[in-house]
């Protein structure tokens, strides 16, 4: 593909002047040699404090029941499902970058795939907490699985909530395997370079006896490609199933056929926004500008622009067909979103997801790192608002005006949400400290001296 060749004007995927040795040194030193920056301790402490807040919130929830949240009749789903969908969406970028871009032979993915995959895992872990605790009795969550039992309890297979269980758990498993398999050669590098006995033993065990023989490499490449093929449909299926959670109901504002592709696009949108939100500070703090170059940031900005436009297309068709349907309830949904009690949420969502990201059309914006960082955060906020608007504004005024209601978040809603952000960041800090955040051996293949004449697959 042309992408691996840097044609005129395109910044390279790796800065000039690096050799096999410097790449390995630079990335592995972050884990093994370099002194842990004081900022790491501060960041981890803050994130861990929020994780403790999550523990408190969940403990209190289990003691008191989900009545501590603002959920009510008619708004039975609120922050919990909003946060679930938000986190799952963020998780999509990792697998997309790792699997789909691998299959599309987009070699620029190499320096961002490792931590994007890690981000996926941590996002899925954060996501899983919400439906699990929303059941109210998380210790009975295994009832969602089909297994022979004396109670004659069997999941309702026509319910997308059951599909969710399978989709998300499969996704988590495959993402974990994909990430771990991709780590093995690098774990062996860490094992070989580690100065401490504990390091050699732990990384040695994780490296699973990797010796770097050509047979190892051959099997590794086959396994990695197969896993990529396996992970690709999952990128689409998980958020499709999440969209079915809403679309197969007959709730106005939920029951609409565009939901599957538009949810998938939204997931990729928020996922890339989160990768940018994380990559920009990380590359600055760890001085990784040679590896995460402007090319990466620009490409991610372009993906965000495209997926953002698809999402905007979704909003437009939804609103048009709501009117075109000539159905009173369907027609009411966009009106209620635009002018109802949650109008602020809706207009902020349009501002964050549709209006501001249009700046990304400009190359000046795509190459301006601070502005890109701000836009990525705005998109994250916008995608959270999108799920909030879809869920709460549809539920709070459905068919009968006599059963309309309002929802407002309680302290515990917020503390659980913020707590999962803490969990996500804590895991991320640990990852940055103990594992190579950029794939060392794949970066080496990006160097000019590694280039063999490309084989047309």
């Amino acid at each position: 593909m042309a992408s691996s060749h840097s044609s005129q004007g395109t910044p390279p995927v790796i800065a000039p002047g690096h050799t096999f040795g410097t790449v390995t040194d630079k990335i592995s030193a972050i884990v093994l040699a370099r002194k842990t920056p004081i900022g790491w301790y501060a960041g981890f402490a803050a994130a861990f404090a929020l994780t403790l807040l999550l523990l408190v919130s969940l403990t209190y929830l289990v003691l008191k029941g989900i009545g501590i949240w603002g959920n009510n009749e008619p708004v039975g789903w609120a922050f919990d499902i909003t946060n679930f969908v938000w986190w799952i969406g963020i998780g999509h970028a990792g697998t997309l970058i790792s699997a789909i871009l691998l299959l599309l032979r987009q070699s620029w993915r190499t320096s961002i795939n490792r931590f994007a995959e890690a981000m996926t895992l941590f996002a899925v872990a954060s996501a899983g907490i919400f439906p699990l605790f929303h059941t109210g009795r998380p210790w009975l969550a295994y009832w969602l699985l089909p297994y022979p039992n004396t109670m004659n309890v069997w999941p309702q297979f026509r319910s997308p909530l059951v599909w969710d269980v399978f989709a998300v758990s499969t996704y988590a498993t495959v993402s974990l395997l994909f990430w771990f398999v991709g780590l093995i050669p690098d774990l062996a590098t860490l094992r070989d370079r580690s100065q401490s006995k504990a390091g050699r033993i732990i990384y040695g065990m994780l490296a699973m006896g990797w010796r770097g023989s050509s047979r190892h490499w051959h099997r590794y490449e086959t396994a990695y490609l197969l896993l990529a093929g396996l992970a690709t449909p999952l990128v689409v299926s998980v958020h499709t199933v999440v969209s079915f959670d809403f679309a197969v109901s007959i709730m106005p504002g939920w029951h609409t056929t565009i939901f599957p592709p538009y949810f998938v696009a939204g997931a990729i949108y928020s996922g890339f926004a989160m990768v940018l939100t994380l990559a920009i500070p990380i590359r600055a703090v760890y001085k990784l500008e040679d590896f995460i170059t402007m090319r990466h940031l620009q490409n991610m900005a372009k993906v965000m622009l495209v997926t953002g436009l698809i999402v905007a297309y979704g909003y437009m068709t939804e609103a048009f067909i709501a009117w075109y349907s000539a159905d009173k309830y369907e027609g009411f949904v966009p009106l209620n979103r635009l002018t109802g009690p949650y109008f602020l949420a809706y207009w902020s969502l349009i501002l964050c997801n549709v209006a501001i990201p249009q700046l990304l059309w400009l190359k000046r914006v795509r190459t301006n790192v601070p502005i890109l960082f701000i836009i990525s955060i705005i998109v994250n906020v916008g995608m959270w608002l999108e799920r909030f608007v879809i869920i709460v504004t549809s539920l709070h005024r459905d068919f009968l005006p006599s059963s309309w209601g309002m929802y407002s978040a309680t302290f515990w809603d917020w503390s659980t949400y913020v707590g999962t952000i803490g969990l996500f960041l804590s895991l991320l800090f640990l990852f940055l400290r103990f594992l190579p955040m950029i794939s060392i051996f794949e970066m080496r293949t990006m160097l000019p001296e590694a280039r063999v004449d490309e084989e047309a697959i």
Partner: protein
Amino acid sequence: MVLTNTADVAIPELAGYQRRLLIGGAVGMIASLAGLFMEPTQFLQSYLMAYMLWLGVTLGCLALGMVHQLSGGGWGVVIRRPIGAATRVLPVMTGLFLPIAFGMFRLYSWTNLDLVAHDEALRHKHLYLNAPFFLARAAFYFLVWNTLTYFLNAWSLEQDTTAEPGLARRMQKLSAAGLLGYGLTITFASFDWLMSLEPHWFSTIYGVLIMGGQALSALAVLIVVLVWLSRRAPLDKIVVAAHFHDLGNLMLAFIMLWAYFSFSQYLIIWSGNLPTEIAWYLHRLQTGWRAVGVTLILFHFVVPFLLLLSRAMKREPRTIVVVAGGILVARLVDLFWLIAPEFHHAGISVSWLDVVLPVSLGAIWLGCFIGQLRGRAILPLHDPGFDEALGRILEKAKAERSAAAH
């Protein structure tokens, strides 16, 4: 170098094909005029189907060309010129819309004002679904598509002669805006021309479904054309198995997308089971039309999906051309499924016009396409990205041939 010759000089037999196709197409159209007098509604219904297939090929090529301007990639190098030629059939397709414009009062029940007056939903939609606005919208869609086609092709020709480097950038910018315009116009065009055949029914995914279908039709035609060209000089020395592999993979992706969109629409509507929505499926699935639905599942998804999984199948021109041809037929069946049941609620009904019109319109389309192909070099040599890609392809072709020789 031989590559700078126009296709006309390089492949002299094109002129003969063009003449024969146009004559054949004209004969078919004249024969089908008999149908216009005997059963005008059936004629218009079949014509709409045939027209949407070949308009889909044209616009699908326009969209794929714009995507390639932005994404680059080896797959587009060898089909860039066929893509350009296909888009230049658009003015002819614009003229061929006239039968639909004139026939709209027979095709679309919402044009019947008596019916609208007694139907609350149609009264509500009258603001959008009314004859003048319908025609004005159609004019606007064609204006957008023709403008895009005109500038992209004019600049590409300028690039051929002047090799001016700034043109590539300009084409990229237009393509970015053009894709946005294409997405919006084709969505509303599909609502107007196809979805409103049953004016009570609606589906938000419909535009996306039609877009995916157009890209698939375009790819199928492009693959057939490329196989044909690759058997003749000068492309026989340039097109290699890897090109067909890439295009086959793209076709596989669009097959899966079509299945994904169609299944999503079906599952959501089936599950909601609301009267206004499910009616569309009821008279399709509880009558003889069901056979068409099953055919689509098998031949628009299962069979091509399984065939295209095979690497050997994609790399061999003789097999990929059969799959691509089959997919084009399946695209026609899909449009038949979208259109025909609205005119025959009781059960399946196939007319001779459903065969003659798509074939004759196809012959006319191909004749115009060949005419457009003849005038330019078969590869765009002065595109800066292409020079690089082409060099690699030529090297690769050399290596592959020498490997085959050993």
